[in-house]
């Protein structure tokens, strides 16, 4: 490639040396001449130039897209059940490369299949994004598990000074009705029963349901909308 560029430069130099001859030329003509020379240069170097262009663009796009795909949550590998997404395989050795990269970048230790199952929700049952300015009721059934926890959080770091009084409910703590069902109310203001305060004044929030020691981790496909908690929006301000 070096030898080739040198030859090309060699071809250009005599041409540019010729330019001072037309010293009385107008500025526009000179500009046209220079651009013509540049065009010729580009035409001559087109192969090298295009190879460099392809390499640079390919590397930039590839790296940027890889960074984008692995910087947030898991991009693929979830199973959607109503408003919830179950992440069964993110912790196993046959996890997809994206989940593995996300785990590595975040320092996450995901739940193994024999250990438990993580379900996340970012929308309510009607598909609207969970928002901190609204009030929600989460309740109904939970897939069979020895223990479960329901956690609420938002994106970004939590302000330690404004840490909410409660960020999660466990299956032991929950107050149940006579038929063993339960309702968790997520709201800013204090509620009776199982009150989970909104973790932040505004913005999107996410729910995480972790099932521990559950048989469904190995058969996520068997879950349907009726076996996961319903997320109902009660109202917004």
């Amino acid at each position, binding site marked *: 490639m070096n030898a080739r560029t040198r030859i090309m430069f060699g071809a250009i130099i005599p041409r540019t040396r010729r330019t001072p001859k037309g010293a009385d030329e107008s500025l526009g003509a000179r500009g046209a001449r220079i651009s013509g020379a540049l065009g010729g240069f580009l035409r001559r170097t087109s192969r090298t130039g295009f190879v460099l262009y392809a390499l640079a*663009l390919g590397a930039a796009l590839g790296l940027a897209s890889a960074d984008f795909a692995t910087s947030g949550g898991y991009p693929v590998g979830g199973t959607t059940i109503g408003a919830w997404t179950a992440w069964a395989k993110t912790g196993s050795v046959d996890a997809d490369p994206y989940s593995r990269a996300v785990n*590595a970048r975040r320092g996450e230790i995901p739940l193994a299949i024999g250990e438990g199952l993580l379900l996340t929700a970012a929308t309510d049952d009607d598909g609207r994004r969970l928002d901190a300015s609204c009030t929600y009721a989460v309740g109904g059934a939970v897939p069979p598990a020895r223990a479960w*926890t329901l956690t609420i959080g938002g994106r970004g770091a939590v302000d330690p000074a404004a840490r909410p009084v409660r960020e999660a409910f466990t299956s032991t703590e929950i107050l149940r009705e006579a038929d063993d069902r339960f309702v968790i109310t997520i709201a800013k203001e204090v509620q009776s029963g199982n009150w989970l305060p909104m973790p932040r004044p505004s913005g999107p929030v996410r729910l995480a349901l972790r099932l521990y020691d559950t048989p469904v981790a190995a058969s996520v496909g068997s879950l349907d909308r009726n076996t996961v908690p319903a997320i109902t929006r009660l109202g917004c301000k």
Partner: protein
Amino acid sequence: MMSTRSRFILATLCALVLAGIVHIVTVRAIPYFAEGDAFSQARKSESLDHPLRIHSLAVAGTPAPPEEWLPVPDPAVAVGVCAYDLEDGPMRVSARVSSLNLSIAVHNRKGAFYAVTDQAAVRGSLDLVIMTRAQFDEALASADENQVNRDVRIIAPDREGFAVVRVIAGLPSQNAMANEAVDAVSCSIDAPDEPTGPDAKPGG
């Protein structure tokens, strides 16, 4: 001779194909070059004989330990890690069953290859021995037929990895107990020339 425009289009197409290759290679390479991943961070626990607690539950009056790197930990679960290197011998993870739910998962760089909960415990204790295929064969060959072995033997695909201990505190009053339950698990190296615990004594 191709025109400049078709060359440009060809170069762009090549760039897209290259971008795809770079994307795939980068995503697959991230776990091997990451420095903040669980596998690298768990190495710190290799010299300990108990799990390094990486997520402690809040107990009034005790400051949170500095070793916390889980991005979104479950606030009701205490987590500890034990790194192993099977070069030194099989790794034994022993836990006593308490009233709290406990689970142990064994990870290598790629992910978890084994997990067990305290429901698998025999007579109140859970004994996991993580070993290589060669160490497993050796253990089988030298096993005493008269002796009952209650160890759960796991063949690790790789020499290095880590075990994760999780203890669930169902109520906030159990937080201190959950933290202690993580610390009470023992992670030791089974020296090949020593009897493996009291159960392995001849005639025992």
